[in-house]
């Protein structure tokens, strides 16, 4: 198996609730996988299991052939798995560029090199005008972009995006979609949890749909959107391919 990430029969229970119930899927290098599902489907739990926030109750998580089940978040980061936070978690008393530098240190141990990498990353994401602003003073839209910038400055192999479009204006969604779409060609594989479906449906190479803790559909975005199980999970809500 040459999969970058394998999630094997992962179960996670909170008390009597099975938030993630026997989920298995694999992600190949260069893929851009959209992970969707209705509220409470278990997306965030699955996301946190992969990021190492908590160990799964049962099952295995394998990155690049290595069993990383039970690894801590910082160990996952060092293994090349970056993540964003749904509710942004900036270093409030630091400037925007300093926020990104802290991530850049993972690959560039010197201050000068980390500064340079952070600078390039900020420019990529259109954050250059805000580089010296305090992160604590940014609007939600900018904080979401800062989350992405911090993840990308780690030069990860795999990046996990958690609703990076929420709170963005349509123009910003368009710009962010372009950034994300270009990641696979830069050698960054993407797993993307998103509620703004039109953005993810256009960009993803493959979709994984979960509901009630289980995978209910998997495949190309267009096929998944027509899947009766998916349509039903979203309570008949039509998924528009913009």
């Amino acid at each position, binding site marked *: 198996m040459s999969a970058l990430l394998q999630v094997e029969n992962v179960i996670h229970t909170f008390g009597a609730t099975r938030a993630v119930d026997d989920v298995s899927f694999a992600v190949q290098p260069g893929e851009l996988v959209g992970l969707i599902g209705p509220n409470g489907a278990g997306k965030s739990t699955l996301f946190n299991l992969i990021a190492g926030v908590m160990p799964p109750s049962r099952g295995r998580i394998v990155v690049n052939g290595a069993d990383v089940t039970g690894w801590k978040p*910082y160990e996952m980061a060092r293994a090349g798995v970056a993540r964003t936070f749904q509710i942004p978690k900036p*270093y*409030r008393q*630091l400037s925007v560029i300093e926020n990104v530098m802290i991530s850049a240190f993972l690959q560039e141990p010197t*201050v*000068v090199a980390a500064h340079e990498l952070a600078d390039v990353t900020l420019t990529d994401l259109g954050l250059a005008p805000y580089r010296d*602003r305090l992160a604590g003073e940014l609007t939600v839209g900018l904080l979401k972009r800062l989350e992405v910038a911090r993840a990308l400055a780690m030069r990860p192999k795999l990046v996990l995006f958690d609703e990076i479009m929420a709170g963005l204006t349509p123009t910003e969604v368009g710009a962010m979609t372009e950034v994300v779409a270009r990641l696979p060609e830069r050698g960054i594989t993407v797993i993307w949890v998103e509620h703004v479906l039109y953005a993810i449906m256009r960009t993803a190479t493959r979709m994984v749909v979960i509901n009630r803790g289980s995978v209910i559909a998997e495949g190309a975005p267009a096929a998944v959107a027509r899947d009766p199980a998916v349509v039903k999970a979203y309570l008949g809500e039509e998924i528009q391919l913009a």
Partner: protein
Amino acid sequence: MTVTPAKTSAKTTISGLPQRGRVSWFEIILLAVCAIWVALGLAPTLQDVVVLSFLFGGLALAWNIAGGCAGLISFGHAAFFGIGAYTSTILFQSYNLTPWLGIFVGAVAAALAGAVLSVICARLKGPFFILSSLAFSEVVRIIVLNWSSVTGGAEGLSIPPVPDLANMVLGSKTAYEALMLAYLALAYAITRWLEASRIGFYLFAVRDNDDAAAAAGINPLMVRSLAMAMSAALTGIGGTLFAQYFLYLDPTYVVSPELSFQFALLPAVGGLGTAIGPILGSFLITPLSELLRANLGNAAAGLHLVFYSVGLIIVMLYFPSGIAGAIDKLRQPRSPP
């Protein structure tokens, strides 16, 4: 750090962390004034105040590494101060080891104690960490008070007042001023270096957001232990210097909560997380408390503490980001949003 010049017009100041990584003339001039102050010499009563201002400036900087930079607000730093002071003094008395070496043994012992504290309190944050640190120093105090065969118990320890440079017992107050200024300069240099280094950034990251730091590949427990160890080591060095100046260790002062509060207070007044703040805090508060004690102590016992407390409340109310923060605001008025 200035690889590419900032091109933005919408530049705001970084409150609490001014001009990180850049040399500020204000700070250099302040240190130069201190050096000249020492070189010229002053009236003997004032020299005491100068010695203490320098010593506590260094101690405030030491506390600030944990409390200001890494967000580990500790009310137990007197434990590290005591460990440093007692280690070097016991080694000197019992094994005739010169305090010039004992100071490093004390620093290492304090660093270990600091690392142990942060590992024990790994999961504690905010008020819970503060209380644990306070409890930790109480444990150390009780050990010092009861282990009489080694620490002298409640009677304390004294060092023979025989001036001898080899034993770090200096002949003049001016010499002590220079020694304490060197300590202050060391603590300042370390803080400045930290602010502009990778490890310093990691301290700020852990202070501002644990989860984000871990997601960036930082082991928060490791960083906290390191911050606490560095802070404790520097505090321990201050403890030895204190012992060598007063030549007497009183356990009810050396390992007291009051002393711990003092360490925390000076950076809070001066400006948390900055290099210059703790120094300003000490230069303001130490002379104030010494002079109040000297002038009011006889008239009405305890009255000096009332004045002192009122002053502190005023500072906390009107300058929440400390003196350094207030100066910063004066210099760079906030741009309209």
